[in-house]
């Protein structure tokens, strides 16, 4: 007779935050509280301090000053979950986040939301030279916002993250340009969700509030 192991299923899914510094820790705590009003998934925080209601993962900074970004491009190694939702610390959850996990269960490797700046403004927040190099290779790409991102552990995701680390290390600045370059070399199955899931009614995003 077949039975469903409910407890085991819950551990497949989990949420990861990255929070270094007092401001990020404060924002992550408030984000976790908002998440808890909608979902009971386990939460891990990668950073330099513990937050109530979550498990702390310590990750040594090897970048000389950008531990948060370096942790983000190492999420494949840091997340203990088979299916992970990464949330920026400065997000607030106001609705159902299960569609992202549902896409992973369907066979998509990543679920993510396109950024608001596109076209002439694509990657405008990235350094001038890095932006020029990225646009020379990609020519008008679709910018993706990595602040709300679901991914599952597959061989191709491991390749993507390895490439993302390599690309990010060239400039050691923002991560979104590096992700686009990494996707070009190591494509994965990307399912897009709409703006409500990052900067809208399901997940509000208080951009910049986690920085000191």
């Amino acid at each position, binding site marked *: 007779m077949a039975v469903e192991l409910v407890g085991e299923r819950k551990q497949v899914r989990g949420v990861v935050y990255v929070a270094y510094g007092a401001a990020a820790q404060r924002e992550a705590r408030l984000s976790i509280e908002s998440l808890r009003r909608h979902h009971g998934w386990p939460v891990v925080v990668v950073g330099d301090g513990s937050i109530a209601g979550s498990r702390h993962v310590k990750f040594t900074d090897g970048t000389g000053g950008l531990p948060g970004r370096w942790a983000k491009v190492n999420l494949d190694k840091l997340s203990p979950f088979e299916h992970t939702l990464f949330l920026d610390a400065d997000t607030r959850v106001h609705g*159902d986040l*299960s*569609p992202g996990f*549902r*896409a992973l269960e*369907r*066979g*998509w*490797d990543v679920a993510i939301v*396109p950024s608001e700046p*596109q*076209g002439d403004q*694509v990657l405008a927040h990235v350094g*001038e*030279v890095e932006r*020029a*190099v990225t646009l*020379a*290779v*990609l*020519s*008008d*790409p*679709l*910018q993706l916002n990595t602040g709300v991102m679901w991914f599952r552990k597959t061989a*191709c995701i491991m390749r993507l993250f390895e490439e993302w680390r390599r690309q990010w290390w060239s400039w050691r600045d923002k991560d979104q340009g590096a992700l686009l370059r990494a996707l070009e*070399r*190591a*494509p*994965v*199955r*990307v*399912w*897009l*969700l*709409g*703006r*409500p*899931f990052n900067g809208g009614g*399901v997940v509000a995003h208080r951009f910049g509030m986690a920085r000191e």
Partner: protein
Amino acid sequence: MPDASGKLVRVEVGDCVQVGKHFARDKLASGAARVPGGDETRARKVIAGDIQDCGVLVRGNKREAARIVGKYKLQVASGRVSLPFARTLVWRPGLALNPRQVVMGFARLEEQDGYDAWEGAAMLRAGEKMALHIGTADERRATRDTIGTLKVPLYEAGAVWVRRTAATERFAAAWAGWLKEGISEEHALLRALYVNPLLLCTLPALWLSSWWVKESR
């Protein structure tokens, strides 16, 4: 100019040369150099002749398609959504395309340096609407039942470039099936994609306008 080892070399405009990182940054920032490769280079290869495996599947008037792509001697077929070529542009003639735009889409599917290549390329639909904004109540309900939410962006169904693989053949069959049932273009494409995950390169809305060239007659 110095090459990567510091040795002075003579170069001409158009040459590709390996240089140091700082020199590269300076020249890129000033616009005096560009990174080789990328869409333009791949497109030139496609236009130059790497197109034997490319063709256009027209969901409409085949003669109009042949007129547009004839310059590049692309194969043309017509009928329901299918993948008759190794790389197929599934095109609905209501969406205006010129030859350069057609080959730029094929360039997105080309393998590079032994890495995996995208299996499909499709643009988001202009206007930032989501599935909850279009279609009948029944269509929206069925899409929500399939995908789990209607808060997903819409794709431009008029031009989808596809490299034929096992995954994309399943996708194309599903897409054709939904269209045959009379489902709206946007909902049919969304459902077909969702239930058949593939390596899809999503392009921004109005990506085609990046490659608009006035063709002289």
